[in-house]
């Protein structure tokens, strides 16, 4: 058998397997990300079958996967939303960052993984998965709830923070000096400001440049622009992902929604490949050793996320049940944590143990987050009802049926 034939067979088997896993995930109403990771773990070094042939394609595909993930994330937000989000809840954003970056960073320092390890693990525990959370809230019919905007605005800030965090991370991973790192972050900040201002002012014009009624033409222009911008950003060491994110923000209105439609299947394909490659590069035999640590970290950072949500919802004048719902909703970590860990692993600047820990951690919370979000209401109700019953309540008005 020729080499190409083997690669094709392996790729086919991987995608087919992912498709089946994805359908299983959909049946249980959960995110397919953890299953993709498990799929990758099974087929990598030390797994059941070693798929060595696809590593070349896998690497470039997963690179494109990250670019598409961030491009679509940028497309979800309008510049106006980001600016109002920044104005309205920057304080909640800082509380979120401090509470949730610290546990990961602290653990990494304890483990002796140094400053780079701390930066990576802090990022992994800090970012909630906006993809998983938005989907769960919408599935549970909570979009009309009062606490939902609080949750969403925290997610906006986290995603925006990534635009500063990722360049800092890339700079550190590349071993740039402190000054070099500052320069990179400075470039990223300047680029964000320019893009936000340009998107606020010239959003329609930028969109028109990309837009095309012809799907094929539109897709080519989009992907072309995304890869070009990502490549340029990468050349400036600002991180390719951030370039794609900024391009996504600059595209607005109806162009953004049609771009989302054309890109979605492609993103799903390449992002799945990204998760698989991350799993492939992680040796599953290293996971049992870090599992207790991952469980501990998951418990601590679930508590800190709940605290963040409860605090932010309280500030927004939400009642106790809503505060709890907001807190628990934030628990899920997912694609972003893996993007961060993936960047770190690819650079070779961190230990394999860190990759195993990040994998186990994300596996736990990508599953636990949505489950906890679903059950926080029925589980907390008996306790909360007792509290409200002990306090005097107004009798229901007569003749009103619910």
């Amino acid at each position, binding site marked *: 058998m020729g080499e190409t034939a083997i690669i094709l067979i392996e790729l086919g088997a991987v995608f087919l397997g992912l498709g089946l896993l994805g359908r299983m995930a959909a049946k249980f109403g959960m995110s397919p990300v953890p299953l993709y990771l498990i799929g990758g773990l099974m087929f990598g070094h030390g797994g059941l079958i070693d798929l060595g042939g696809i590593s070349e394609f896998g690497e470039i595909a997963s690179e494109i996967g990250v670019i598409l993930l961030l491009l679509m994330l940028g497309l979800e937000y309008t510049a106006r*939303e980001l600016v109002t989000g920044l104005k309205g809840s920057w304080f909640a954003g800082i509380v979120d960052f401090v509470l949730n970056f610290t546990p990961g960073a602290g653990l990494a320092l304890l483990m002796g993984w140094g400053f780079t390890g701390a930066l990576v693990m802090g990022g992994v525990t800090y970012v909630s998965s906006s993809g998983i959370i938005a989907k769960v809230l919408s599935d549970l019919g909570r*979009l009309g709830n009062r606490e939902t905007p609080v949750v*969403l605005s925290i997610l906006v800030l986290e995603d925006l923070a990534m635009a500063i965090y990722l360049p800092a991370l890339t700079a550190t991973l590349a071993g740039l000096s402190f000054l070099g790192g500052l320069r990179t972050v400075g470039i990223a900040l300047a680029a964000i400001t320019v893009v936000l201002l340009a998107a606020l002012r010239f959003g329609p014009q930028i969109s028109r440049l990309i837009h095309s009624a012809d799907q094929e033409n539109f897709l080519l222009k989009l992907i072309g622009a995304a890869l070009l911008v990502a490549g340029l950003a990468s050349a400036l060491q600002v991180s390719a992902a951030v370039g794609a994110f900024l391009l996504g923000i600059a595209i607005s209105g109806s162009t953004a929604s049609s771009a989302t439609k054309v890109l979605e299947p492609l993103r799903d394909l390449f992002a799945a490949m990204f998760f698989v490659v991350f799993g492939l590069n992680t040796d599953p035999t290293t996971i049992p050793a870090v599992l207790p640590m991952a469980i501990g970290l998951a418990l601590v950072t679930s508590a800190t996320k709940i605290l963040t949500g409860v605090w932010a919802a309280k500030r927004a004048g939400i*009642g106790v049940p809503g505060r709890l719902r907001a807190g628990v909703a934030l628990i899920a970590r997912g694609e972003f944590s893996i993007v961060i860990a993936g960047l770190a692993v690819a650079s070779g600047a961190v230990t394999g143990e860190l990759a195993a820990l990040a994998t186990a951690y994300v596996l736990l919370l990508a599953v636990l987050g949505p489950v906890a979000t679903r059950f926080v*209401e029925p589980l907390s109700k008996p306790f909360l009802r007792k509290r409200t019953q002990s306090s005097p309540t107004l009798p229901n008005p007569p003749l009103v049926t619910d």
Partner: protein
Amino acid sequence: MNFEDTSLPGLGVRREITLASGRRVGVVILRDGSMQLIISQREDPDACAAAIPLSVDEAGAIGAMLGAPQLVTQLTDQHRDLPGVNTQQFVLSHESPYVNRTLGDTSLRTRTGSSVVAISRSGRVFPSPEPSFELNAGDVLVIVGTSTGLDNAAHLINDG
């Protein structure tokens, strides 16, 4: 009645009113144009007792049920003595080329002889809309005209 708009970053917007009874009733309008009808819980006003997904047509139908019917009934009553003049309501579908364009852009009056006498949006009625009125998907257009004129009008607002 005050509409309260809350942005749901990345997803869409929530628009609601608080009723005299203290309950919130409104819609969540998502980016892709889909909608949910939301009604708050009585015991926990922050939460929703129901979040019912609606298609654009269903939302328009409910809006029309709430806002337009009295108007249509009244107008039909008034036109009873004028044979051949009818009143009908049309939902501006998502695919219509006139979404986000003005009423003037349709040139409905010139091209079909019928006229838009009112537009109902989310249950709110805008009587005698100006040509500069910007149309949204899901708007219910109350149109008066002859039956041929109304057929042509339906065709025009759907296909341009």
